[in-house]
C-alpha cells in the first residue's frame, strides 16, 4: 500500500531516512539541507528510528564521523549543501578511498563568493571526481526513490562506495509536491539488513584503516580503486529493476525523453528537466523533432550509453547549472562531449549556462535553446559555443 502525500523534497528524503533507519547519522545545519536533518532529528527524538545522531560542530567533522561510523561497521548517512560540501571535500576522498558506503543527499546550492543560498549545481559538481557515486533527481519523488536505492547501491558487496543523492535546493527541497511513499516494511525489506565489510568493532579481528602508501604501491591502489567503478552501472540498473518491482517506477542510468526519433536534443540535470519536457511537448506539437536526455547516474558517468543515445542527433545543447570557472566549459558539457568524441557521425554541441544561484529557469529559456538548435541543425553553423542564458545585459 503506497501512500500519496504532498510534501517538500526535504521531507520526502527525511522520510526515506526514517524508513531505511541508518544506525548512525551525522548532521550539521546548512541551508537548504537543514530542514531534512531537522525532520529526521524529530524522528530520532520521538523514538521512531533506532538511529544515533552525531550533532557535530562542522561538516568536516560530519564527514569525519561518518567515516569512523561506517568503518566501525554499520549503516551511515548524512546530508549537506554548498559550503558544507566544500568543507567536507578532503574527507570525501577518504570516504571513497576507504570504500565506505555512506549515503549523503546533497541539496544543491550555489557556492560562495558571493554568498547565495539558492540552487545551482556547483557544489556537487565540485565534488564530482571525489569517488562518490552521484545520483541526480528531477523532483521530490526521484529524490525519495534515489535515496532508498542509494543505500542498496552503496552497500552492494561489489561496490562499497559512498553515494550522493543530488536534488535542487528550494526548487525541490522546499517545494511541496505530490509524491508516493512506499510502505515502511517494503522499504526495510528492500534495503535489507546491513552487512559490514571489515568492521572495526570486530575487536577479535583487528584491522588497520588508512595506511600510508608510498610510491611503491599507491599507483596500484588507485588502479584497483578505479576498477570498482566499472561495476557500478550494472549494479545501479539491477537495483533499479528491483525497485521498479516494489514501486512501479522505472529508473535507468539516464532518462531519454522523446529522443529516439529526435533531430535535436537538450541534455539537462534535475528539476529543469521537467520544465524542459513540457516545452518539448509544445514543440513536438508544432512538428519539431526535439528530445531530451537527463543524466541520473552522473558518477561514474555512463559515457558509452549516453554517447549512443545522442550520436544520431544533428545538434545538442548541454545546459549546465554550474559554470566551470577559469575558462572551461560547464561540467556536464565536458562529459557529454567526451561521450561523443569518438563517434564519426555526431551532433554539433553547444553549451549554455543557466539558473545560477537560483535564477529561475523558465519555459521560454528552453524555447530559446530549441529555436537555436533548430537553426544550427539547419545551417550547421554555431554562433557561440558557450554562453549564459537568462542573464541581464
Amino acid at each position: 500500500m503506497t501512500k500519496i502525500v504532498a510534501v517538500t523534497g526535504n521531507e520526502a528524503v527525511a522520510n526515506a531516512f526514517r524508513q531505511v533507519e541508518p544506525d548512525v547519522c551525522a548532521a550539521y545545519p546548512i541551508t537548504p539541507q537543514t530542514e531534512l536533518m531537522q525532520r529526521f532529528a524529530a524522528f530520532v527524538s520521538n523514538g521512531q528510528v533506532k538511529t544515533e545522531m552525531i550533532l557535530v560542530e562542522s561538516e568536516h567533522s560530519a564527514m569525519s564521523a561518518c567515516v569512523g561510523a561506517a568503518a566501525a561497521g554499520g549503516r551511515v548517512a548524512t546530508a549537506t549543501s554548498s559550503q558544507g560540501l566544500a568543507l567536507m571535500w578532503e574527507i570525501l576522498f577518504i570516504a571513497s578511498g576507504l570504500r565506505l558506503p555512506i549515503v549523503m543527499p546533497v541539496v544543491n546550492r550555489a557556492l560562495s563568493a558571493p554568498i547565495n543560498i539558492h540552487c545551482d549545481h556547483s557544489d556537487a559538481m565540485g565534488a564530482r571526481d571525489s569517488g562518490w557515486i552521484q545520483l541526480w533527481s528531477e523532483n521530490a519523488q526521484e529524490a525519495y526513490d534515489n535515496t532508498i536505492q542509494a543505500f542498496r547501491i552503496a552497500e552492494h558487496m561489489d561496490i562499497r562506495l559512498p553515494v550522493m543523492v543530488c536534488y535542487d535546493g528550494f526548487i525541490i527541497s522546499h517545494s511541496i509536491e505530490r509524491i508516493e511513499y512506499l510502505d515502511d516494511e517494503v522499504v526495510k525489506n528492500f534495503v535489507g539488513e546491513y552487512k559490514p565489510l571489515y568492521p572495526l568493532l570486530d575487536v577479535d579481528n583487528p584491522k588497520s584503516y588508512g595506511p600510508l602508501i608510498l610510491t611503491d604501491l599507491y599507483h596500484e591502489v588507485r588502479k584497483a580503486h578505479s576498477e570498482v567503478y566499472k561495476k557500478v552501472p550494472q549494479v545501479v540498473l539491477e537495483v533499479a529493476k528491483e525497485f521498479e518491482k516494489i514501486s512501479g517506477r522505472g529508473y535507468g542510468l539516464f532518462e531519454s525523453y522523446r529522443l529516439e526519433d529526435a533531430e535535436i536534443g537538450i541534455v539537462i540535470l534535475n528539476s529543469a528537466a521537467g520544465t524542459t519536457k513540457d516545452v518539448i511537448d509544445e514543440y513536438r506539437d508544432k512538428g519539431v523533432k526535439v528530445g531530451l536526455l537527463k543524466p541520473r547516474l552522473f558518477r561514474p558517468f555512463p559515457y558509452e550509453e549516453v554517447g549512443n543515445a545522442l550520436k544520431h542527433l544533428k545538434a545538442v545543447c548541454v545546459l549546465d547549472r554550474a559554470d566551470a570557472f577559469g575558462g572551461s566549459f560547464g561540467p556536464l558539457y565536458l562529459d557529454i562531449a567526451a561521450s561523443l568524441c569518438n563517434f564519426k557521425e555526431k551532433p554539433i554541441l553547444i553549451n549554455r549556462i543557466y539558473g545560477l544561484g537560483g535564477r529561475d529557469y523558465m519555459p521560454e529559456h528552453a524555447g530559446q535553446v530549441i529555436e537555436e538548435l533548430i537553426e544550427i541543425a539547419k545551417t550547421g553553423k554555431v554562433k557561440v559555443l558557450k554562453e549564459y542564458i537568462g542573464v541581464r545585459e
Partner: protein
Amino acid sequence: MEKVEIRWHGRGGQGTVTAAKVFADACLSGGRYVQAFPEYGPERAGAPLRAYNRISSKELRMHCPVTNPDVVVVVDPSLIESIDVTEGAKEDAKFIINTSKEPAELRKKLNLKPTQKIYTVDATKIAIECFGRPMPNSPMVGALNRVTGLVDLETLLEDVRKSFGKKFSQKIIDGNLLAVKRGYEEVKEG
C-alpha cells in the same frame, strides 16, 4: 480544468505559504498532482512575498514560478497599492481579494479586463471574529476553494483539521475551521 495555476500575494508571517500548502494538500484527493512553493528571498516578517500552487490532473513537471496565473489570491489588501497583482494574469483569471470593500470597487481599482473575474472576502474580519487574530489565511483558503471548486468543503475542512491538529489547541482549530467555512460562504463575486 486540467491545470490550475494560482499565485498568492501576502506578507511574511501571515501564513500565506501555509495556506498554499494546506490548499495543495486538500487538492491531493481525487488523484490530482499538486505543487505548493513560495518565492524565497532574504525577506523576513512583513515583507511582501509570493507563493504558488499548481493543481493538475496530469503529472506536474514544470518547476518554475507561475507567471500566467488562473487565480490570484491577495491575502494582504495593502499590497495592491505597491504591487501589480494583475501582472501576467490570464484573460479569464479570477482575483480573490481580502478586503472589506465591494467587488466592483476592486475591479475598478485593479483595472481588470471584462473577461476577468473579481471576488472579495473580508478575511481579516472573519479571522478576528473566529479566533481573535488578524491571520487571514484560513478564510482565504475557504474563499479560494469556493471560487475554484477544486475540492468539496468537507474534504478541505478535514485537511485543515489535520494540518492544524499537531500544533494547536482545540479552540484555535475550531476557530480556524469556522473561518475557512465563513470564507467559503461569505466570498462575494462581482
